[in-house]
């Protein structure tokens, strides 16, 4: 766009076309790499600060309490909704293959392996992640971190590491509760609403396709997603600047990165855990 030249503007030589092309191509890459480096540095510091974090165990417990009271209900509700969704599609899709009796395969894998973790990622990114950006961002805007530093409290430990530790403590259990709601919803739809498969038929197949180790893999998946989300969110909150607008746009930027990270982590871990060995007790 050609901006009207301001009076008294010194004559600036416009860069040549190749230089502009080069800048246009490398600029975004450089920006992304710089931000990734800062994010990695922040994450590394946050993880290192975990060593001495238990001196603030009261703060950790308070954060765990906030996570449980604030996020458990919405996680359980959304897992219930996605459980209904999985079960509906399971029945309709496998009916097309003439295998409604195997709806349990679909629900077992949908819940534990894929949609449970993804749904977890979405909700944690929205509820916990955006909340952390807003909280830490407004602390940064109000210079609370500087105040803590001048009082001799390390905000990376007192604010960031305590929240990280609280998430490490609370996430696996919140997820398990959500997963239970997911499977209740599966049964409600398949057995009670659609009613094409009997309760015994559904349960037999469903549980036959879930190994205990799958639950462990699922937990690893959600912890990987959860840690990535929380660290990204706290990075954007910790480095927010520019008043109320800055906090809002930091939230928006953290969501971009979080949504991409959720899908990349989910897909990569699926390939790692189940790509080579589908672990399906059928056939040879």
């Amino acid at each position: 766009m050609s901006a009207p030249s301001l009076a008294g503007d010194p004559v600036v030589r416009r860069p040549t076309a190749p230089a502009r092309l080069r800048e246009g191509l490398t600029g975004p890459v450089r920006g992304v790499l710089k931000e990734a480096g800062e994010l990695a540095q922040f994450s590394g510091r946050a993880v290192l600060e975990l060593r001495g974090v238990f001196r603030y165990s009261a703060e950790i417990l308070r954060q765990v309490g906030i996570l449980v009271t604030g996020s458990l209900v919405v996680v359980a509700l959304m897992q219930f909704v996605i459980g209904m969704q999985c079960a509906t599609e399971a029945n309709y899709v496998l009916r097309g293959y003439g295998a409604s009796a195997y709806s349990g395969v679909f629900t077992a894998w949908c819940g534990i392996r894929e949609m449970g973790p993804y749904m977890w990622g979405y909700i944690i990114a929205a509820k916990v992640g955006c909340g952390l950006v807003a909280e830490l961002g407004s602390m940064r805007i109000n210079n609370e971190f500087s105040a803590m530093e001048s009082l001799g409290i390390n905000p990376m430990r007192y604010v960031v590491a305590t929240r990280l530790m609280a998430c490490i403590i609370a996430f696996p259990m919140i997820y398990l509760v959500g997963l239970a709601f997911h499977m209740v919803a599966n049964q409600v739809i398949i057995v009670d609403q659609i009613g094409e498969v009997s309760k015994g038929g559904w349960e037999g197949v469903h549980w036959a396709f879930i190994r205990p180790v799958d639950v462990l893999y699922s937990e690893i998946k959600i912890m990987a997603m959860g840690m990535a989300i929380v660290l990204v969110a706290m990075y954007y909150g910790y480095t927010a600047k520019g008043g109320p607008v800055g906090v809002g746009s930091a939230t928006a930027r953290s969501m971009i990165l979080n949504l991409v990270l959720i899908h990349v982590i989910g897909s990569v871990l699926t390939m790692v855990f189940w790509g080579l060995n589908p672990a399906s007790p059928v056939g040879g």
Partner: protein
Amino acid sequence: MEAATLAPPTLPQTPTEPSTPPPDKKSSSGLAAVLEEIAAMLLLVGQAARASVTRPFVWRDEFIEQTFLIIRRCFIPVVISTTFFGLGAPGIQGGNITYIFGTVDRLGAFFVMASVREFAPWINGMVIAGVGGTAICADLGARKVRQELDALAVLGMDPVRTIVVPRFLALGLVTALMNLVAIVFGLVGGWIAAVPVFGDTSAGYLATFSSNFTLPDLLGSVIKTSLFGFIVAVVCCYKGMTVKGGAEGVGRAVNQAVVLSFVGIWAFNFVFTTTMLAAFPETGNLH
């Protein structure tokens, strides 16, 4: 900041703001507050719908600007997200199921369900809500905090007509368009699973996909995502325009807006899909 210098004579308090949606009373609590909020959002929908079909159409320039902005912000996240999701969940796991049945080429048919009916619409909705919606909410919240919305009202401009309507229409249009992008890249992810990973043929994948891909599926997908866009627009505009407090207020509003949009998208998605499957049972057939 600058508002102080811009208004030397103290303006008389405008007695009635022209149809500003935010009812600033937050006295009630619990269920009543939730119902009140939903009612206010529906009111905003009504106002926006009326303003978008009546003259003057002052929202046209802003509409184009917002459309471009949302597409620019959301395109790359949508592409990455749907490709990886298509490869992981329906690709590898769905491939595992079809592998049990000995028909990996049916993965194409599976992707009609997976990509067109399910994950392309809602990943697209999530990204639009998480990226476009949060940006809109933050923008409107900042305007509210800086009292720009009040300034607009003082100038006699209707904030619904000038600010909400363009975003409303832009989100409705862009979400439906991005859905097509999401479907295509979801299919690319599925192709990566079917052909390089499971060693099936491209022809088998594409043939089962195209023979199962029906018009109700596509129309349902597009209509659904367009409605997702409206849900996101209403929630984010409402939350942005009713921000209270400073930086914390904006952050909290964005947080609530994105959670509410996600809940709205998922609840609506379930209702819509169930209704569509019941109304068009032939979409569940395998051809």
